[in-house]
């Protein structure tokens, strides 16, 4: 997953920064956004006041040492919580910084359409001066200064700075591979690029801002949880405040330290302290998986996905379909057929087209195409080809598209070719029918190779409750063959861009959440319609704008990881909330007897942990409450492990570990701390 960054949770440089931040975050105006920890801060301030009061001679509140220790522990509780958030931020920031560093003040060769001396003059400016729509040039060895789209040329580019993938990739103008990312390096050739984002608005900038917390908005689930936690906090405010008159009635004076300790122990400080760290860590995990998200909400939504639309090509099958065989029609000479195929594919920039030229073994430069008109593939005609000046019209395309052309011209479709098509389709291949002047001259066989291990991944998704849908331009027969072999639940065959869109809308109308991955410009509307749209970094700018995540690795199976990250994020919050609340049982049994033992000795029976003294009991409870936060930081940062075992089994498992464990653990922990504390108190 993470290729460049260390997986160590606590790097010393980050810890130092986080420690500093822990103190800065004590500022009440920052802390007020977290209601639970804010009440702890108020409690800490009250304890400080009590300590000062005792120093001025007050006798009713117990010893100064005891009150001072309570104050210090509360302060530590706050610092621990701040540290959790700070270390999560520092980790995210470090990850983002390493990406950002590469492009800060990169010299950019900006093209001025009207320069001082020439038209289209090239001048070197700092990358920060580039604006959307500006043009710049990159040559061998240059670092690309900004995200943009190639408008001229072709280059090999080393994207390892972002993807960690060492193999260089080819980017060229036109088609779906025209997009370049700032910070990557041109290895060969020269390209002219148009800047597509304003500085500070690139995906990376957005991501960095999210991780740094500046623009991190609480997600809907996080808001709902904060409300619940605030509710719990209010309940315990009521419990503790009303205890004062109850104590008065029972003739039991209760010290302020005891009230404050009971309150801080009961409110859900564990989850309250770790809540924002969990959120940031979720984004950070996404970044470590080389996925840039535009909002925290998208990551959460990913955990809820019901349906996943995957392009067949590159996702389920390796790379693109390749031409594997030329089948000439009856009475057609094979050599001339192959030549016609190559000719029709000359201008075809799709991988299929290129593979046809490749398989034909004919050097494209040997053709003279002067005066020829290239017919581009469109979703409507579903065929492409070439019109030669000699009047020869060669078309290649889907079976039914070509058949229409042939039949409309009054010609017949040869039966042998039709047989061949059926055989190819039956084998999971794709037939590409070639016609010359509306006469069928043969079929090109394209074959797919299914990725190893893909079947297991789909099984895993199914267990998570996610339905997988394969989208392909293939005919239904081929699509079904591959769908069955790969183990997807459903497929859309002969898909036009609007088919994807319609499928997504249909699923959404049924209340489903849909994700899709795409890279092409024609994917953009569907990417925008999907609840989670993941654009490939290699995809077009339009695709990247439309989606709400960008996958830097261009790995289509990344959605599986994204789903797991989303689920982990929610689970970590849920389990720690349960743990935090379950802890209260033991804390009650530690503190309540300690409060009343002086006036109602019979309540000693409630001291089931047999804690040494009221003071030691209260101190043990607050100490446990404080140290559980740093102990759980690794869990908050890594996330609770997700196991695709079904929702009910998962609930049973987590309820046992974090619910039952949350009740039992503090009994043991508080008792152990008490053994230690009882030496002094």
């Amino acid at each position: 997953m993470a290729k460049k960054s260390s997986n160590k949770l606590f790097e010393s440089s980050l810890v130092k920064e986080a420690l500093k931040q822990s103190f800065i975050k004590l500022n009440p105006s920052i802390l007020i956004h977290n209601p639970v920890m804010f009440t702890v801060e108020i409690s800490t301030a009250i304890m400080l006041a009590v300590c000062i009061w005792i120093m001025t001679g007050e006798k009713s509140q117990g010893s100064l040492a005891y009150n001072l220790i309570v104050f210090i522990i509360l302060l530590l509780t706050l610092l621990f919580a701040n540290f959790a958030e700070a270390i999560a931020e520092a980790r995210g920031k470090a990850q983002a910084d390493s990406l950002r560093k590469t492009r800060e003040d990169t010299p950019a060769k900006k093209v001025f359409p009207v320069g001082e001396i020439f038209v289209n003059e090239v001048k070197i400016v700092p990358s920060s001066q580039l604006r959307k729509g500006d043009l710049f040039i990159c040559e061998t060895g240059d670092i690309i200064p900004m995200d943009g789209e190639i408008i001229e040329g072709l280059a090999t580019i080393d994207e390892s700075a972002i993807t960690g993938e060492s193999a260089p990739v080819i980017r060229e103008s036109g088609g779906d591979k025209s997009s370049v990312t700032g910070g990557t390096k041109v290895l060969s050739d020269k390209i002219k690029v148009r800047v597509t984002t304003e500085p500070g608005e690139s995906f990376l900038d957005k991501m960095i801002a999210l991780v740094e917390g500046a623009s991190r908005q609480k997600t809907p689930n996080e808001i709902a949880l904060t409300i619940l936690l605030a509710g719990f906090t209010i309940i315990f405010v009521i419990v503790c405040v009303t205890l004062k008159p109850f104590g008065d009635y029972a003739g039991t004076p209760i010290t302020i330290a005891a009230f404050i300790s009971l309150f801080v122990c009961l409110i859900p400080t564990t989850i309250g302290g770790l809540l924002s760290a969990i959120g940031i860590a979720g984004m950070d995990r996404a970044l470590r998986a080389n996925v840039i998200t535009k909002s925290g909400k998208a990551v959460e939504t990913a955990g809820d996905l019901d349906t996943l639309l995957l392009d067949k090509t590159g996702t389920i099958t390796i790379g693109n379909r390749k031409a594997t065989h030329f089948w000439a029609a009856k009475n057609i000479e094979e050599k001339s057929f192959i030549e016609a195929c190559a000719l029709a594919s000359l201008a075809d920039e799709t991988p299929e087209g290129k593979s046809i030229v490749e398989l034909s073994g004919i050097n494209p430069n040997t053709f003279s195409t002067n005066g020829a008109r290239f017919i581009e593939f469109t979703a409507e005609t579903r065929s492409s080809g070439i019109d030669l000046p000699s009047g020869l019209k060669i078309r290649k395309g889907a079976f039914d598209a070509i058949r229409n052309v042939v039949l409309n011209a009054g010609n017949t479709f040869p039966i042998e070719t039709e047989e061949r098509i059926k055989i190819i389709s039956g084998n999971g291949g794709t037939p590409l029918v070639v016609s010359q002047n509306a006469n069928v001259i043969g079929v090109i066989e394209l074959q797919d190779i299914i990725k190893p291990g893909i079947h297991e991944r789909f099984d895993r998704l199914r267990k998570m409750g996610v339905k997988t849908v394969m989208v392909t331009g293939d005919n239904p027969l081929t699509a079904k063959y591959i769908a069955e072999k790969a183990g997807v639940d459903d497929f859309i065959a002969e898909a036009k861009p609007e088919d994807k869109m319609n499928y997504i809308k249909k699923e959404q109308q049924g209340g489903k959440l849909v994700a899709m991955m795409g890279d092409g410009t024609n994917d953009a509307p569907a990417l925008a319609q999907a609840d989670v749209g993941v654009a490939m970094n290699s995809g077009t700018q339009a695709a990247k704008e439309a989606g709400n995540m960008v996958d830097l690795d261009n790995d289509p199976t990344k959605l599986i990881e994204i789903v797991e990250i989303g689920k982990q994020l929610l689970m970590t919050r849920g389990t720690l909330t349960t743990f935090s609340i379950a802890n209260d049982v033991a804390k009650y049994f530690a503190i309540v007897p300690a409060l009343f033992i002086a006036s109602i000795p019979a309540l000693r029976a409630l001291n089931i942990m047999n804690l040494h003294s009221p003071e030691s009991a209260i101190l043990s409870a607050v100490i446990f409450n404080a140290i559980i936060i740093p102990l759980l930081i690794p869990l908050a940062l890594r996330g609770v492990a997700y196991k695709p075992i079904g929702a009910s089994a998962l609930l049973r498992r987590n309820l046992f570990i974090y619910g039952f464990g949350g009740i039992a653990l503090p009994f043991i922990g508080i008792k152990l701390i008490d053994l230690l504390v009882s030496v002094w108190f």
Partner: protein
Amino acid sequence: MNTEILGVVFMYVVMVLLAIPLGKYIGKVYEGERTWLDRILNPLDKLFFKLGGIKPEKEMNWKQHLVAMLTINLVWFIFSMLVLMNMSWLPLNPDGNPSMSADLAFNTTVSFISNTNLQHYSGESGVSYLGQLILMLFQFISAGVGMAICAAVFNAMKERTTEKIGNFYNYFIKSCTRILLPLSLVVAVILLFNGAPMTFKGKDQFISLQGDTVNVSRGPAAAMIAIKQLGTNGGGYFGANSAHPLENPNYFTNIVENISIVLIPIALVFTLGYVLKRKRLAWVIFSVMTIGFLCFVIPSIYYEMKGNPAISRLGISQTMGSMEGKEVRFGSAASAYWGITTTVTSNGSVNAMHDSFTPLTGMFALLGMMVNSFYGGVGVGFLNFYIYIIIAVFISGLMVGRTPEFLGKKIEAKEMKIATIIALLHTFLILCFTALSSHLFAQDPKAYAGWLNNPGSHGFSEMLYEYTSSSANNGSGFEGLGDGVPFWNITCGIVMILARYLPIIGPLAIAGILAKKKYVPESAGTLKTDTGTFGIMIFAVIMIVAALSFFPALALGPIAEFFSMKH
């Protein structure tokens, strides 16, 4: 097995066996399906619809339900205040009982329209027969209101997206005519034949064995007793409630009345299963409620049958168990069983002195009211439970890594806000008002000496019980509290109003908002709510949210008393 325990087991089993078919019948009534009572009662319903100008088929959204519910409650509130404050000169007052003071009339009116039936007066001397009849009418109305809102919430929980969730007046009238009226008739007739009075004549007289002349209050009691039990009202005809020999003459009537207490609350759970076509969910809810109920009732019966350790130390044999404050004709087990059934269901009628229960039984009675949803009051018991379901769904949804959803509807911030406020409310009302009275008492024990019959922990329990009972709309009292004074009348009145209407409005609002949301069909990743695991989750949420927040208060009251008594 001990016959006392056998009696209790018999009552429980018969009750469940009756509740299952009744639940289905109620479901049919609410769904507008044909029932065998249609032929007799259709004309009656039509008359009501015509008189009230009601179009039963016109569906309402949740806000319209709310307005309708509050309107009829306000009308009856004013009407009741007028009658109670003027009944001395109004007809049907053979015993010449006086009118109520304003604060007592306020307390009594609130108490009856809120289904609490806390009585700071005694029926024999405090109200006329007209007053009793008005109060009896409210026992129908308040129960009908709770059931009608519950029916609307069931309707809202169906698998669809809609704003319209039935007609409030239709649900309300049918709850009264089709469910409460026929059942009350049956129970009243049984009571009548066993000796409960039903007359408009004034006090009767007889000369006792000692030769004294004894005046015995009577009146239209049988009818009132039937509805007080069935509607989880609990407002007795006589001051001593169902411990009075004319309200509850023998063990058989005790069985009938005790079954009546819990019958409709349990039946409504099965109604949910019928209306939503989710029998499993109904059984999970029933099981959670039953386990909670058993957690309270078993130790209570145990401690009552074991007797009071303080009395044992005096060398007095307690083979019948702790009999202080209990009727010999019921015995300790049946009294303890009644004590818990009446508190978990927000009924509040009593057949023994709750003040005299051994401390832990008192605590379980308190806990029953603090939770207030292990069966709970008619309609409102499920509404309270619904809040806990929402919270449990939310936490467990997060725990399995999915945005929480319940019956295909996503639970988001708005619903959580309402659920949290409602879950808070009960704790807030009970603890804050008990704190207020404790504070006043602790400041000046002499001035308030009349409040408490007992010092120390028990006195604390009396105050805690009074507000818990008010907030749970229960209405039973830990007698011994001098509660007939303006302070208690007014504070309890405020608690009852808030604790009645907000917990109705909250769940109705949540259900209404959820009904409008897009329906998401279940998938393999959806957390199923009709499983045992989820049942455990709800149980844990209820215990930790509802029970744990009262732990310090309970420690100072019954728990302290329990441990002190042991030593």
